[in-house]
């Protein structure tokens, strides 16, 4: 927002970037991410930026990134949610019990019945929404600080999950459910290209429509070449990502296990590739929906207004209490989604699933530029933040950095990222 102040009446020196009207902050974060990737690529002799590792990196990031998009709204409204990891565990416990025990035993649906995964998902999302909404009620209507409510929630929901499962690992999970885990469920080459092309087309149309709206109101627009350059960059990024995922070929022995899935006659020389995982697709859908909520709906407008000035929001007739309930219910739903991906990736519900995820999620949102003072934050920032965290962690693991040093580096980066953000805000004159 802050970097688009150039008024039409001032045709003075405009830098290349301001002509393009791209978010310098977004560029900065992408730049940081690229640097992290390049450094690790050098340190690992080129093993970091292989299709295989990029594929793994993206499926490892999904669960935390999904929850981080919700954490943005929480932090923007000056709250915090320490319970997301525990809530994720309760949701996966409920879902694991639902599909392996409750549904087969109580309704007589046999294990493997096609309805089981979908009922499970529904139950999980409902569980997340109810628990999140209840925490939101305690925060919004009963005025208990979010820190306390969710700190209590961290202890409660982690151990509710333990109680429900007697601390046991629950599995194996439903075959269809497992498709959300990453490598078990991918689009394959053909559909990945279709999705990529559709996304690229949608992005181009969206940007051009935004331009047309501006023109129709007589607002200043950037020059056409700048528009084309931005659209071109976006399309290249989308198709580039698809190309990378599509070049991660399935090993022959994996193809041999299920020839039909990969459309091969025989395992040798089949050249099947994984393509976009369903879990990454889910993250992209979540990101788009959350971004639309943030930027294009009244709900999002009220979230940011409340974060910027709670009194003003209240006086403008916004029901900030109900808003808090909605936000925390949304986070609950996202925890359930994150839980689906996390447990499907493992193949089981385990007792320690999602442990310390609350800290990763908060760190992702904060590295992504969400200000704890409220009112400022972006969905894409949180996702890039989650990517940076995951890249650091798996990069250091690949290089062979010892575990304690890994956490020391991540902690250091978290503080550094916030410091850079504060300097940037000072420099750019924003709040």
């Amino acid at each position, binding site marked *: *927002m*802050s970097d688009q102040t150039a008024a039409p009446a001032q045709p003075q020196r405009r830098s290349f970037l301001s002509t393009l009207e791209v978010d310098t902050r977004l560029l900065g974060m992408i730049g940081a991410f690229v640097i992290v990737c390049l450094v690790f690529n050098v340190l690992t002799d080129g093993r970091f930026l292989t299709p295989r590792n990029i594929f793994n990196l993206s499926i490892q990031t999904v669960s935390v990134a999904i929850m981080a998009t919700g954490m943005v709204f929480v932090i923007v409204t000056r709250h915090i949610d320490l319970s997301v990891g525990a809530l994720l565990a309760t949701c996966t416990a409920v879902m694991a019990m639902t599909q392996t025990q409750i549904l087969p035993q109580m309704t007589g649906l046999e294990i493997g019945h096609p309805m089981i995964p979908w009922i499970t998902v529904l139950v999980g999302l409902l569980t997340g929404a109810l628990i999140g909404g209840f925490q939101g009620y305690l925060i919004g209507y009963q005025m208990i600080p979010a820190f306390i409510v969710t700190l209590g929630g961290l202890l409660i929901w982690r151990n509710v999950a333990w109680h429900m499962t007697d601390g046991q690992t629950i599995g194996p999970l439903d075959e269809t459910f497992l498709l959300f885990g990453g490598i078990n469920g991918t689009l394959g080459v053909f559909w990945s290209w279709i999705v990529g092309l559709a996304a690229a087309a949608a992005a181009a149309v969206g940007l051009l429509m935004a331009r047309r709206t501006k023109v129709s*109101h007589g607002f200043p627009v950037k020059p056409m070449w700048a528009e084309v350059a931005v659209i071109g960059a976006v399309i290249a990024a989308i198709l580039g990502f698809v190309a990378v995922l599509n070049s991660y070929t399935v090993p022959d022995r994996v193809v041999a296990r299920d020839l039909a899935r990969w459309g091969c006659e025989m395992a040798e020389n089949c050249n099947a590739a994984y393509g976009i995982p369903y879990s990454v697709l889910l993250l992209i859908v979540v990101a788009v929906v959350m971004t639309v909520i943030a930027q294009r709906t009244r709900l999002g407008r009220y979230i*940011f207004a409340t974060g910027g000035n709670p009194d003003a929001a209240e*006086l403008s*007739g916004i029901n900030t209490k109900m808003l808090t309930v909605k936000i925390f219910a949304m986070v609950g739903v996202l925890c359930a989604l994150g839980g689906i991906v996390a447990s499907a990736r493992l193949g089981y519900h385990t007792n320690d699933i999602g442990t310390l995820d609350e800290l990763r999620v908060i760190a992702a949102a904060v590295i992504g530029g969400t200000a704890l003072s409220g009112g400022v934050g972006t969905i894409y920032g949180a996702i890039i933040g989650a990517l940076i965290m995951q890249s650091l962690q798996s990069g250091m693991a690949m290089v062979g950095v010892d575990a304690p040093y890994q956490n020391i580096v991540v902690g250091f980066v978290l503080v550094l990222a916030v410091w850079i953000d504060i300097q940037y805000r000072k420099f750019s004159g924003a709040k």
Partner: protein
Amino acid sequence: MAAPLVELKDISIAFGGVKAVDHVSLDLYPGEVVGLLGHNGAGKSTLIKCLSGAYRKDAGEILINGKHAEINNPRDARAHNIETIYQTLALADNLDASANLFLGRELTTAFGTVDDGRMEAETRKIMGRLNPNFQKFHAPVSALSGGQRQSVAIARAVYFNAKILIMDEPTAALGPQETQMVAELIQELKREGLGIFLIDHDVHQVKELCDRAAVMKNGQLVGVVKVDEVSTDDLLAMIIAGKKPEHLAA
């Protein structure tokens, strides 16, 4: 004279035993500016917050255009065309001018999403009328000067056809030039037939801008006077001593 726009009748509100407003009655006519004077804690802001919906009165009645009005929250107040301009509270600093102008009443597209284009166009129109020099349509309002922020707040009231305007120290944070701008705006709104409650500390300003002045002390109404019939010293005496001047006391 026309019928009163607002009648506050016997309003009382207490906070934990402290009577912040104690049986106060006050009215406001169309095209009139009524100044509210008093020390900090005299109860003038509290009284007016009952009208703007920020507080709920404990007792008393509010009449708008002669009809009983139930005002329990800011939304109710807006439904009665009451708009409030606060000194500091009313803008979300992180949002731009048009988001603030339409906050709580966003224009939406056919899909139910917020229509930023139309809102910006409307904002440009109204700001072009109120403050033609204003250009920072995409900056968060935290980047605006005090006068610019105040003009956004006033634009909000004007845009939504306020009939009753409450201004809580609208010029407290402004420089002389910007104060002049707000003063001119008040005259303009008055000509359009709005009724304005102006809360202020500055007796000179009240004498200059208002038709009548209501003075409060310790939650009670000291008196309501026509500003032309009193001197600033009289007003000061009312604020400090809590008594009506003698030539009007009869």
